[in-house]
């Protein structure tokens, strides 16, 4: 896999269009999903995803061939999302991601649960949100998250635990747990 990625990168550096399209095709879906969940806005996620790939190809020569490509690209995406969020905080209020998405079928219990989870995730502070999204929604291990966010693994674990507790507390307050048994005598 690493040699395959190294060969792909080498071809990209030679300017082969097929290799460029192949690399974009391999990662752009997941990068877009991460950006969309972190930024909570589809159009912003599209712009940031494009910026991420422009930056990836600009600094492709600095990629360490000994390491897998995905965490490196994910780290660039995290940094771009951070920058985008800091810039967005200075701008006027934007349309919410959930309102920006197309209208779906009528909500059922699971849809309400998903919406509450999304809302709880968006209330997290940025670092906690990134860690939670990467771990629970994109299945990244602690080590890769730590590498992408340039933080120690212990810090990532602490942030994730706090993020979970905050989300659990919100879901509990929003009545997402209806059936809790009574204490046994």
């Amino acid at each position, binding site marked *: 896999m690493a040699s395959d990625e190294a060969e792909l990168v080498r071809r990209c550096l030679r300017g082969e269009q097929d290799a460029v399209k192949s690399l*974009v095709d391999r990662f*752009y879906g997941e990068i877009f999903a991460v950006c969309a969940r972190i930024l909570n806005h589809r159009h912003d*996620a599209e712009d940031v*995803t*494009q910026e991420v*790939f422009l930056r990836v190809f600009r600094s492709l020569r600095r990629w360490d061939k000994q390491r897998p490509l995905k965490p490196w690209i994910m780290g660039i995406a995290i940094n771009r999302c951070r920058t985008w969020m800091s810039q967005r905080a200075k701008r006027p209020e934007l349309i919410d991601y959930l309102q920006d998405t197309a209208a779906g079928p009528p909500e059922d219990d*699971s849809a309400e649960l*998903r919406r509450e*989870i999304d809302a709880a995730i968006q209330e997290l502070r940025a670092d906690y949100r990134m860690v939670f999204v990467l771990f629970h929604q994109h299945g990244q291990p602690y080590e890769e998250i730590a590498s992408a966010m340039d933080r120690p693994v212990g810090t990532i674990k602490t942030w994730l635990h706090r993020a979970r507790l905050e989300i659990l507390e919100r879901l509990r307050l929003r009545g997402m*747990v209806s059936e809790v048994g009574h204490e046994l005598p």
Partner: protein
Amino acid sequence: MNCLDCRELVQRLMDGDLSAEDRSALEAHVTVCHACRELQAVAKRLLEGLRLQVMPAPPDSLKQRISHAVLVQSRRHIGFRRLVFAGAMAASIAAVLTAGFFWKSGTGKQNNSGLAIHSVPLDKPKPSPSINQSVEEAGKAVLAMTRRAADETVGQSRMLLPQILPETPATGIPEIEPLLEQPSRSLREIQTGMTAALEPVTSSARRAMDLFWRELQPREPSNKRGS
């Protein structure tokens, strides 16, 4: 197990890293603790909701858009690198030409000044610009100038010598060496002359001393005879 341990097990449950033994301990605790039972129930609900979530799908045009932007950037980057390379090459060539021009003009000035200074001994142009040859030529020029100055000095001295030592008549001593030898002959003659001149004086003095001595001699025997 207390509630703090139970919260840790809930975290491990959400990590997907809960062993069967820990699961049994957790279940045993939540049967007697309402708060921990509620926490476990919310955690399970959260995991259920996360499994139901779908990954946001990118629009169809995004891939084409990204690929196009990347290729445009690559072309610009390659063009910029070529421009930088061409600029560097042009600058290098210009630097070499400028250095050559100044080198050549500096060498011409050196020749002109050399001709002006060493017009007599160095009338030939310097053929070689190398340092060793230049030093060698400079040494030769200094040597030539020294020889020339020495020759001029000797020539002028030879020209001035007759004025300092006027010529003697033909009857006189024609050369310096006989003039220098003349005092030695005169002294010998003087010595011989003086010896000859003093000879009568010395003989008269000797005769007078003999007479005086003779007059003193007879008195002494008479006195001895009388005593």
